[in-house]
C-alpha cells in the first residue's frame, strides 16, 4: 500500500509528534476547564464589575482568530521579559482561548440549575462557596458534558495551529516528513484521517460519559 510505504520509515518521528499533540491537548484541556469554571462563576456573580470583566474576556477571545492570539503571545511575551518555550506558549494560548468557550458551556449549565435547589441548599445552612462547588457545579457539569465535548474536540483540532510557532506536534512533524519525502499528498491524507479518527473516538467517549453521568435521568 503506497500510503504506508511513504509513512513507514518516519513512523517513530510522527508518533513523537502525536505524543506532543496529546500532551498539549491534555494540559490545555485542564487549563481551559479551570479557567472556564472560574470565568463562568464570575459571569454568574451578582457584582456588575466582576460580571463585566468576565464577559469581556469571553467576548474578545471568542471573536479573535486563534492564530492572531497565538502570535500575540508568541511574539509579545518576550517583549515583557517572559521567556518561555513555544510549547508552553502554545499551551497557555490554547487554555485561554479554550477557557472562553468552556465558560459559555458551564454558564449555560449553571442557568439550568433550578433555583429551588439553591434555596434548599441555603436553608440547609451551606455557605456560598459550598453551594457553588458542591451543589451548583456538579449539576451544571452533568448537563454540559456534550457541549463541553465539542469544545474539547475543537481544542484538539486547534492544536494543529501550534505548528505555525515551531512546535513540532503531529502537524509540525508531518510537515517535516512531507518535506523530506516529497510526498505531501500521502502524508497529509494520512494525517487528515488520523485527526478525524482521533476526534471521532473522542466524541464516542463523550457520548458514553454523558450517558453514564445522566444514567438515572433515563428512567426504566
Amino acid at each position, binding site marked *: 500500500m503506497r500510503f504506508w510505504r511513504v509513512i513507514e520509515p518516519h513512523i517513530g518521528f510522527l508518533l513523537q509528534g502525536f505524543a506532543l499533540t496529546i500532551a498539549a491537548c491534555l494540559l490545555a484541556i485542564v487549563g481551559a476547564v479551570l479557567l472556564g469554571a472560574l470565568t463562568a462563576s464570575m459571569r454568574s456573580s451578582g457584582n456588575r464589575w466582576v460580571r463585566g470583566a468576565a464577559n469581556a474576556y469571553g467576548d474578545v477571545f471568542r471573536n479573535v482568530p486563534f492564530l492572531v492570539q497565538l*502570535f500575540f503571545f508568541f511574539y509579545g511575551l518576550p517583549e515583557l521579559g517572559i521567556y518561555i518555550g513555544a510549547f508552553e506558549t502554545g499551551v497557555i494560548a490554547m487554555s485561554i482561548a479554550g477557557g472562553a468557550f468552556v465558560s459559555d458551556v458551564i454558564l449555560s449549565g449553571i442557568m439550568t440549575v433550578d433555583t429551588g435547589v439553591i434555596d434548599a441548599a441555603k436553608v440547609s445552612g451551606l455557605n456560598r462557596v459550598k453551594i457553588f462547588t458542591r451543589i451548583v457545579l456538579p449539576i451544571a457539569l452533568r448537563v454540559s458534558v456534550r457541549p463541553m465535548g465539542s469544545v474539547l474536540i475543537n481544542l484538539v483540532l486547534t492544536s494543529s495551529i501550534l505548528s*505555525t510557532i515551531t512546535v513540532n506536534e503531529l502537524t509540525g512533524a508531518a510537515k517535516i516528513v512531507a518535506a523530506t519525502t516529497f510526498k505531501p*499528498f500521502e502524508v497529509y491524507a494520512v494525517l487528515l484521517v488520523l485527526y478525524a479518527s482521533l476526534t471521532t473516538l473522542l466524541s464516542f467517549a463523550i457520548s458514553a460519559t454523558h450517558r453514564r453521568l445522566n444514567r438515572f435521568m433515563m428512567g426504566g
Partner: protein
Amino acid sequence: MRYADFTPYDIVLLLQGLGVTLALFIGTTLIGLAIGLLLAVVHHYRIPGCRPVIVLVTEALKNSPVLVQLFLVFFGIPAFLHIRMTPVEAATLTISLNTAAFAFVVFRSGIESIDRDQIEAAKVFGLDRSQILRFVIAPQAAAFSVGPLVGILVNQLQVTSLISVIGVFDLTKIGNILNLRTLQPFIVWAVIGLIYYLAAKTLALAGSRVEAALRKSVKWGGI
C-alpha cells in the same frame, strides 16, 4: 526615518489585507452555502448511494483541522495530480468545502425540523415535490437555520486567518509583515485582533437582523 517605524502607508496595507480577507470570506461563504444546500437537498430526497458518501465526507471535513486540509490541498493535490495551484485557489477550495460541510448539517436539521404532517398535508393539496420544497420546506428551514448559520460564519471568518500560512496576503499575513518590520508585536497583533473582532461583531449583528426579519412570519401575531 528608520524602516522600523510605523508609516501612514501601513494603513493602506491593513486595508488591503482586510479586503483580501473579506473577499475570500464572502466568496467561500457563497460557494460553501450553495454546496451545503445542494448536499442537504440531495440528502433529503434519499438518492441511492449518496447519503453515506455525503455524511462520511462532511464528517471528515468537520473532524479534521482546517490547517491540515489546507496543506493537503495546497501541497498535496498539485504534487499528486501534477497541476499548478495558487495559494488563493487552494484557500478558496478548502474553505468553501469546509463551510459547505458545516452548512450541510445546519440545513439538514433545518429540513428535518419540519413536521411530516405538513408535507403530507401539502401532498394532499396537490403540491408537487418542487413546490413542497419551495413553498413549505424552504421558508421554515431558512428561518430555523439562520441562527446557527451566523454562528458558523463568525467561526469561518476566523478560520480564514489560517490561509496566511500557505501564503495568501490576508489580514494576518499583513500582521506578520508589520510585526517583523516594526518588532512591536503588542501594537500590531492588538490592532489586527481588533479588526477581526469588529468584523465578527458586525457579522453577528447583521445576522441577528436577518434572523428577526425571517422569524417575523413564524412568530405568533394574534388573530
